[in-house]
């Protein structure tokens, strides 16, 4: 039993927490761009581990469910309807067998997550069910979904809210509050110093930490380019390739900074003018082309502190969801 892709949306792929520990072999991390949203979607359908969910970008897919399934939409919420009924986001819904789920465009944000009870049953590649589009690794040979693809569901998952299956869509009466995901622009992102931050011209250094940048159309899961201000080095640097990470801000000769994202390569040779605080990576992942961001300098201690607090809050929320689901069943 599976889900058939009737329309793939703009860029949809299966993603989990990513591929860890393989960078020395040239294999990048990939994984969900907005990890908290991916985890919350899983939690709402009762998944507790590293189950893959469907990540979609700006416009969601249209899917036909061959069997009944429990689903949740988190992150950026597209218009969503099943047989004429609008479907809410940030909660869980029960779809009867044969449902056609039509996801459209999003009013806000850039990436949404569709989780199903039991998770999608893809074979792990190098320990992960994430799609690495750049390297061609993972489900569907590492490519984005296409019309006609079939997403397999875990055949052993006893997927039911409780009681007998209803012929209609059922939404759970409570939902999460998504307001934290949608902030007014420009959003402020914390930037750790990079190897070559102090090699920027003085004017460029103050621009980096004060001015507003716009996300270019040149954006994918690997990187996004920032327009609006050209940054210059005091003098050109001839560098050799070194490790880079998701969140590394590189400055290519064009002078337009590039922020590496979930599918960052493992090495790069451009000057590195900053490292985005890890806690702010999912916030950047929800910005769309044309949105504005600005940076402020932060220390490693501040970044670690915020990351730890953020993780604690997320863990408490995940635990609260699990308790509430257990109480309802």
């Amino acid at each position, binding site marked *: 039993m599976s889900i058939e892709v009737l329309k793939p949306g703009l860029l949809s792929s299966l993603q989990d927490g990513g591929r*860890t*520990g*393989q*960078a*020395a*072999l*040239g*294999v990048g991390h990939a994984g969900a761009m907005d990890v908290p949203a991916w985890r919350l979607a899983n939690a709402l359908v009762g998944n507790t581990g590293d189950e893959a969910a469907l990540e979609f970008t700006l416009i969601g897919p249209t899917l036909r469910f061959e069997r009944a399934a429990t689903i949740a939409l988190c992150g950026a919420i597209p218009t969503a309807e099943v047989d004429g009924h609008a479907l809410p986001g940030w909660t869980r819904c029960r779809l009867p067998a044969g449902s056609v789920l039509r996801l459209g465009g999003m009013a806000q944000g850039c990436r949404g997550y569709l989780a199903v009870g039991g998770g999608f049953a893809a074979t792990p*590649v*190098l320990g992960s069910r994430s799609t690495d589009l750049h*390297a*061609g*690794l993972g489900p569907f040979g590492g490519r984005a979904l296409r019309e006609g693809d079939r997403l397999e569901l875990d055949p052993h998952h006893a997927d039911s809210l409780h009681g007998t299956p209803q012929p209609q869509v059922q939404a759970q009466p409570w939902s999460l509050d998504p307001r934290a995901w949608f902030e007014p622009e420009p959003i402020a992102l914390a930037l*750790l110093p990079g*190897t070559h931050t102090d090699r920027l011209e003085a004017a460029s250094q103050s621009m980096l930490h004060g001015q507003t940048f716009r996300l270019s159309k040149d954006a994918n899961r690997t990187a996004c380019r920032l327009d609006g201000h050209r940054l210059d080095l005091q003098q050109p640097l001839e*560098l*050799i*390739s*070194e*490790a880079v*990470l998701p*969140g590394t801000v590189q400055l290519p000769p064009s002078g337009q900074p590039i922020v590496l994202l979930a599918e960052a*390569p*493992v*090495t790069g040779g451009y000057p590195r003018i900053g*490292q985005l*605080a*890890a806690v702010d990576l999912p916030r950047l992942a929800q910005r769309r082309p044309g949105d504005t961001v600005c940076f402020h300098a932060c220390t*490693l*201690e501040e*970044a*670690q502190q915020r*990351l730890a607090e953020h993780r604690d809050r997320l863990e408490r929320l995940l635990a609260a969801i699990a308790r509430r689901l257990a109480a309802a069943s």
Partner: protein
Amino acid sequence: MSSTPQCEAMAEDALLLRFGDAIDVAINAQVHAAARRLHARCPGLEIVPAYASLLLRFDPAQWPAREGRSPHEQLIDTVLAALQQADQEREADRQVDIPVLYGGECGPDLAEVAILTALSVEQVIARHAAASYRVAMLGFAPGFPYLLGLDPGLATPRRHDPRQRVPAGSVAIGGSQTGIYPAELPGGWRLIGRTPLRLFHVDAPTPSLLRPGDRVRFQPIDAATFERLAGAATP
């Protein structure tokens, strides 16, 4: 060994050790010697070698701030101490032989490399196959080895017009380096031959044929041997 590396906190969970700033055989040897020591003495670190640096990924929760020392500072103390200890016994480098069919369809740029280097095609092959190379690092794509040790007489600039599709197994020269494309990829290096071996195979127990620090030699083979080995490599 070795000079003390420069340490740079790169991210909340990442420390970069830098041994130099050039693509250099001796500096890269220090990188791999350090990687080996840290593998043996500091379990729980992910270690990513590059030409002149090592990235260490760690779990900051395992290194909680103590006596005013941050997680990164404690890791630096531990790593520098581990690098200072002498090796009990020096483990030999892994040696991997790569059979290559040079020229023809497999190496469409071989003749051009010969012209650019003012050598005969036979001399290019002989010099490329005579050298012992080191896998400086893997990158660009899963399993792509950047090899140091190219005969300086074979250094050739990259193509002005990169190919959209370089076939898997292509052996190529790019500047002063040589490498092997593990999969069909775009690329601007000059293709001089092809190996029938699979460099990267996600279902294999060790997915990458080559690991950072390995020693590599190329063995010229003929078309019949290529076919036989290619048949054996197909799953």
